[in-house]
């Protein structure tokens, strides 16, 4: 996908996709796959295994009929979609408008201008969505201490350790670079945030204990900090200029950078928290099951 984005003149999207789509989602899916493949566990009356089943399982006539119906429906839908693509009018888009106001926006890169200036409402609420999703994930599992990291006690992976020692500082540095670069070239808060998150995940996997230092309110503040910063700015500008999320003239560049910094930190920590929570939530179950088995014997 990232290559496709690059070919379509969308380097910002390519950067974000490479970091999020390939990196972070891959890690989340593989971690889930590990969970689904683990045999034995909490529930006794397990129906089937966690093996990933084949795509379609037709059960006799009815099953085959349903699948044929679905495929037919898809074909019809594809026809409509193709027709819609054919008749889609060429509007010219908002390119000119975006380019015209670039001088006033405080940044030199059009995508950053859209994200943080013209449509900063979207960016703000998007961080909100991230926070809400994180709360949802937290609610879906047992309560585990965010900082309990059991990786360090087990067998150590030399290669991973070496890789982390090499990559984590590099990732953090790249995150800072992308954040700064967002003003005038492809890059920005999202990409930087995801890189920060990736660095944190790597550090967590080798048993890094820096999260212990974030126990209590520290990491919670970091999680909602970006959202809060946007909200604060919105309220101040509402009071000052009567417009929500407006920038005073001449200050736009500085304010945008501050907001981006907050957003990047928030995104990084939220993604890290998502992964760590999911990862740790299933881990102690294994040791518990092992103890149970011992008792049975």
């Amino acid at each position: 996908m990232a290559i496709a984005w690059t070919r379509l003149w969308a380097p910002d999207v390519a950067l974000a996709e490479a970091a999020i789509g390939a990196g972070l989602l891959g890690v989340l899916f593989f971690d889930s796959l590990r969970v689904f493949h683990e045999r034995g566990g909490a529930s006794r009356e397990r129906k089937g295994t966690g093996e990933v089943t084949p795509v379609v399982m037709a059960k006799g006539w009815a099953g085959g009929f349903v699948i044929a119906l679905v495929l037919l429906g898809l074909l019809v839908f594809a026809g409509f979609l193709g027709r819609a693509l054919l008749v889609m009018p060429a509007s010219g888009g908002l390119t000119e408008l975006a380019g015209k106001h670039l001088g006033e926006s405080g940044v030199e890169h059009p995508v950053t201008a859209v994200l943080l200036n013209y449509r900063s409402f979207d960016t703000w609420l998007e961080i909100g969505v991230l926070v809400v999703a994180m709360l949802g994930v937290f609610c879906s599992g047992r309560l585990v201490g965010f900082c309990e990291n059991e990786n360090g006690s087990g067998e150590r992976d030399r290669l991973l350790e070496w890789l982390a020692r090499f990559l984590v500082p590099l990732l953090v540095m790249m995150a800072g670079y992308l954040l700064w670069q967002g003003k005038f070239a492809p890059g920005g808060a999202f990409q930087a945030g995801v890189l920060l998150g990736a660095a944190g995940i790597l550090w967590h996997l080798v048993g890094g204990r820096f999260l212990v230092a974030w126990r209590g309110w520290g990491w919670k503040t970091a999680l909602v900090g970006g959202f809060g910063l946007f909200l604060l700015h919105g309220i101040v500008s509402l009071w000052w200029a009567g417009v929500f999320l407006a920038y005073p003239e001449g200050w736009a560049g500085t304010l945008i950078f501050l907001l981006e910094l907050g957003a990047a930190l928030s995104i990084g920590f939220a993604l890290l928290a998502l992964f760590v929570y999911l990862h740790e939530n299933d881990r102690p179950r294994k040791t518990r099951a092992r103890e149970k088995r011992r008792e049975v014997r």
Partner: protein
Amino acid sequence: MSLATLYLWLAGALFVMALGGVFLCRHFLKKIIAVNILGASVFLLLVSVARRDAGEFADPVPHAMVITGLVVAVSASAFALALARRIWTKAGRVNFEEEF
């Protein structure tokens, strides 16, 4: 046929295929992946439209929408994965068969 049109058609094809995946896959994990591909196809549509409307640079508004969408998609899939894992550990099920 320009590059943007080619990718536009690709997005359409990807969308239909992913929709089939959503309907026909049984395993939660596969369903979630299919939904992700569905989202990717919509992003592809948006970005190729941006490329079509490019002047000096490609239309930045769809790009910003896609970048925002990527993060939202990741958070939604993480939530879905959390639910799926919870169902697996609690009920030992990986799909909506039988009772549903």
